[in-house]
């Protein structure tokens, strides 16, 4: 598979075209905006927590295929996880897309491994994850 095919796998293209959980969450109790000032991409991430459990997570905004698919698949991957588990998953995701580590990811998120060949796109893949992290850190504030 070429680097390009690896980056734009059909799963990513599908999530770009039809993002999941792409809506505002009216009863959210945590929210943050992720913005990449260099490219203008912008996403809102909403979370409904019960204690430490992520019951629901949604997003909205605009960005490239990588950032949108990443946000979409992030919402699927962390629903039902604890805050600590989500944080741990972000750390592993970050290592994989930056090429810093060969750690394992849930199989669905493996499609983002191709990002490591395009360092300039790492910020796209992690934009919504950063927004999630700040939403969780600022919850209730």
């Amino acid at each position, binding site marked *: 598979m*070429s*680097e*390009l095919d690896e*980056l*734009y796998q059909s799963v990513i*293209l599908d999530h770009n075209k039809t993002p999941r959980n792409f809506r505002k969450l009216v009863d959210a109790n945590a929210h943050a905006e992720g913005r990449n000032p*260099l*490219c*203008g*991409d*912008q996403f809102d991430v909403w979370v409904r927590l019960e204690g430490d459990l992520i019951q629901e997570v949604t997003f909205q905004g*605009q*960005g*490239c*295929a*990588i950032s949108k698919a990443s946000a979409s698949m992030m919402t699927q991957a962390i629903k039902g996880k604890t805050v600590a588990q989500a944080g741990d998953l972000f750390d592993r995701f970050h290592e994989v897309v930056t090429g810093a580590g060969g750690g394992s990811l849930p199989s669905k998120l493996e499609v983002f491994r191709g990002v490591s060949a*395009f360092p300039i*796109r790492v910020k*796209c893949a992690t934009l919504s994850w950063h927004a999630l992290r700040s939403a969780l850190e600022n919850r209730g504030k």
Partner: protein
Amino acid sequence: MSPLAAVPPRESRAGRSGHEWDVAKVRADFPILERQVRGQPLVYLDSAATAQKPRQVIEAISRYYQSGNANVHRGVHALSQEATTEYERVRVLAAGFFNAASPSEIIYTAGTTAALNLVAQSYGGSVLQPGDEILISEMEHHSNIVPWHLVAERTGAVIRSIPVMESGGLDLGELERRLGNRTRIVAVTHASNVIGAINPINAIAAMAHEAGAVVVVDGAQSAPHLRVDLQAIDCDFFACSGHKLYGPTGIGLLYGKRALLEAMPPWQGGGGMIREVQIDRSSYAPPPERFEAGTPPIAEVVGLGAALDYVMAWDWEALVAYEQELVAEATSRLAEVPGVRVLGEGADRVSVLSFVIEGVHPHDAGTVLDTLGIAVRAGHHCAQPLMRRFGVTATLRASFGAYNTRDDVETLVAGLAQVRKVFGT
């Protein structure tokens, strides 16, 4: 005078100038064009961000460090005198290239951004009163917007805008209406870094001067593509960068009319800009030294000199005609690609154009093009107000320099077919 008055009408160009632009000869001077990117020959369409450098520039910088390095001014030794002579020769060269009235109207800066900040802080900071107005166009690069925000915050001045029409041109009727007795400064770009649109500076300057305002021109994108004649366009300040003019980064120019420069306070203090220093006060050198505090970027000035020597040997009539043909061809070929929209298509433009592809984010398209060895820019190009004006968040930008070819245009068009294939549009 039309902004393209220096450019003969398209149909008559080849016959009139009698000589064609020898692109193969120019390409041979640019070593980087021989390299491969991701296994493909480099197709460099990002000269609006920074132009590539000819061997003559690279060698001049290297030669300076190998055998000429010394600080300028006040040195009594031979190397310092040589460096000073070259440093001042380049100032004369730049004044000649842009047809300033005097070399003392040319100030070395770190680049266009630094030049515009200098004007905003020194000129703006000293003349603006609360309620005074600064008119800036909607197509400005952030470097001709944010410095005005900073000085407006400091002085209580007010920012007003000059709208951009759908065609890509500035709405000069609206400019005339918005010019008033509180307008002190009109800040406009000579050529848009996003859509390439060329603004008629001499017409704008006439209107602004009538209203008693000065005109500050961002010339970063016009200097490499048009034969700029500062006295003819009659702006009060003009800023440009060496690195977009085939020279090194870290060096730019600020032109200012002598009477204005002489009345302006220093921007930064330090060595080289003083007449005399007491422990509790100092007096300042006349321009241009007044605005060149500290050790300047000497090697960069040397490199800029080599770039000016290089481009001044060009047949500019042939170059302008050639670039105009390239950008016209690129515009019409891109418009044929399904889903592609060229922004501000109706404008007279330098060889810079922006477009969007329906259903594909510019960054994704840029990445696909990159894998084909095609370097374009994707993003907001530091011009968010213009993005908003055209209802987009980002565009793809292709820009063509003296070394680009018709084959480059074709490679780009073929690349866009690949983009559409990947994204199934």
